[in-house]
């Protein structure tokens, strides 16, 4: 086990194409850190740099405080699980598991012991004589995990290990991974574009976009206090609603409606609110947004109401998604009134998209969106 550090690491492929820009990141000893972001955001590049499969253009990567830039992948004592598992097709499951240990000249008896222990842990001990071609997707995934585990490396690198599994299996394996990490707390760096995986597995998340870190924090930090509009829109399903607003005289306006008092400087802002924090209110109340229902998505436990809010400022209506109780029933075109929760409303800079210190900016901490 070890602490992994990226110190100002940049990977530039060509003058125009920079996959990773000035990454500063520390994965603590035994921590499960998830790199999450859309494809092409540099998360896999970061993983490959740590594995030694790619070389940084500048910056330093350290494992346990010692720089490893000059070390080959085999000398870093890390193990990697690939998206397509990369099991050696010409070797049996046993040989696949034993391969890394054989390369390191581990005594034969110890190899046998460790392979069998690992196989038992992952419940693949009945498959040891099979070739990868004779295994199902879930079994291959476990063999790939086993090949990493059996080495007892200083760090695990996982590159979208669940993306080739079907939805049901993915949920199950996700649970297995969580349990496995609790039993064997090895420093792990996990790459995914799936925010559910990220939220459920990670001790901390690092959200990336365009080769840059957007935010690093616990799942709760990322979800409840997004650092910018990208994180707000990327994490959460459905994503956070983002609508244009205006602060005038310490009061937030959306369209012509005075919504709530805020402690932000006057000017245009982007207002963010998650669907579950938008409330259906009587339209007689002040400070609510008048909206008309576009359509509803019934998910059993709740209903997602897609509504359009007319903003007088520009003709284009803003789309809001709000989560309503399962028994809510709206036809297309019905009129509803939507209220914002001041504790859970975020303001972002229009230009840079960065958060304006989140809810601290919003006054009336116990208020109910009382208009001034």
């Amino acid at each position, binding site marked *: 086990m070890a602490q992994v550090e990226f110190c100002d690491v940049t990977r530039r492929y060509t003058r125009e194409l920079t996959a990773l820009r000035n990454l500063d990141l520390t994965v603590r000893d035994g921590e499960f850190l998830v790199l999450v972001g859309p494809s092409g955001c540099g998360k896999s590049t970061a993983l490959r740099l740590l594995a030694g499969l790619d070389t940084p253009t500048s910056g330093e990567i350290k494992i346990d405080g010692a720089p490893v830039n000059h070390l080959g992948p085999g000398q870093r004592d890390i193990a990697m699980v690939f998206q397509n598992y990369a099991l050696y*097709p010409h070797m049996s499951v046993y040989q696949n598991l034993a391969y890394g240990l054989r390369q390191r000249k581990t005594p034969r008896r110890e190899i046998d012991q460790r392979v069998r222990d690992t196989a038992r842990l992952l419940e693949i001990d009945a498959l040891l004589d099979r070739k990868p071609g004779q295994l199902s997707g879930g079994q291959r995934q476990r063999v790939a995990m086993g090949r990493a585990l059996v080495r007892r490396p200083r760090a695990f690198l996982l590159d979208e290990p669940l993306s080739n599994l079907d939805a049901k299996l993915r949920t199950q394996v996700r649970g297995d991974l969580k349990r496995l990490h609790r039993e064997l707390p090895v420093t792990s760096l996990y790459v995914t574009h799936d925010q559910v995986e990220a939220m459920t597995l990670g001790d901390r998340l690092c959200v990336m976009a365009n080769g840059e870190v957007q935010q690093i924090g616990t799942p709760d930090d990322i979800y409840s206090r997004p650092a910018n509009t990208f994180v707000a829109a990327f994490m959460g399903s459905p994503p956070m609603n983002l609508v244009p607003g205006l602060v005038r005289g310490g009061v937030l306006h959306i369209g012509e409606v005075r919504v709530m008092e805020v402690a932000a400087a006057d000017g245009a802002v982007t207002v963010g609110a998650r669907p579950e924090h938008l409330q259906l209110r009587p339209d007689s109340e002040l400070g609510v947004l008048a909206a008309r229902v576009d359509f509803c998505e019934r998910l059993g436990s709740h209903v997602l109401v897609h509504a359009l809010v007319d903003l007088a400022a520009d003709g284009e209506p803003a789309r809001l998604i709000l989560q309503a109780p399962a028994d809510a029933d709206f036809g297309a075109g019905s009129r509803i009134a939507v209220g914002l929760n001041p504790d859970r409303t975020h303001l972002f800079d229009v230009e840079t998209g960065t958060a304006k210190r989140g809810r601290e900016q919003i006054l009336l901490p116990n208020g109910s969106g009382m208009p001034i």
Partner: protein
Amino acid sequence: MSHTTEITADTVLDDAVDDLPAASRARRLPFSLWHLVLIPLTFVLIAPLVWMLLTSLQTHAEATHFPPVLVPEHPRFQNYADAWAAAPFGHFLLNSLIVTLVVLVSNLVVCSLAGYAFARVQFLGRGALFLTLMATLMVPFQVTMIPVFLIVKWFGDNVWDALGIDHIGALMLPNLATAFGIFFLRQFFQTIPVELEEAARVDGTSRLGVLFKIVLPLSLPAMSTLAALTVLTSWNDFMWPLIVVTSTDQMTIPLGLSYFQGAHNTQWPLLMAANVMSLVPMLVVFLVAQKYFVQSVASTGLKG
């Protein structure tokens, strides 16, 4: 019991087929329409071999008779013994075996190393070098024959006698690696998922180890194809040995066969008997390689 089972299976199949539309039923012809083309073609291809075999069993009179005698009256197996005795045939065979074996091993080793470098290793000028290599494939042998002769002669004079003119070394030297082999293996190596190699490197394998432990075992189909082609080319090579070798003790089989071809009189039965004997190793190679071809087709279904 098993007989009953078979009938049942057939009956079920027939019942199922009866439900199929007429177009599918047409497929139940005992042969494909292609066979109408392929079977005559097979006869055309096999005819020279059969004629060779028949001639090798005829007397000289039968072989030169007109109209041709197809089936010898009394098959004369003595022709084989005579052919073996008439020329230092064992010596030719040994020379051919040595040359082919050396060329084969060297081709497999050198071409796989070079092919892997071109497929996976990033180095300056890789593209240009590969293009140059490809360009050499377009130059016919007749053009390079004399320069190669001079190079080989220089090697013999200055480096090692055994590589020089009129030695079997001269038959090996220009063929130790071929541009085609490098190109062929490079193409195949590129189809192997790069993650397999990366996984092996993370597991602590060196670059060369990756080639020998991961890439080559997965390239058996390509390697066996290249091996078969190399053996064939080397075994049948006539032009180059004819130019560089003049002494009988350095000759290979194709040269040796011309032994039976005099200026005025050709010993057809002996020549054909010698031909049949020189063909046997090729047939063995084909049968062995065929096994690998089938295996490789079967294993392409495996996905890591």
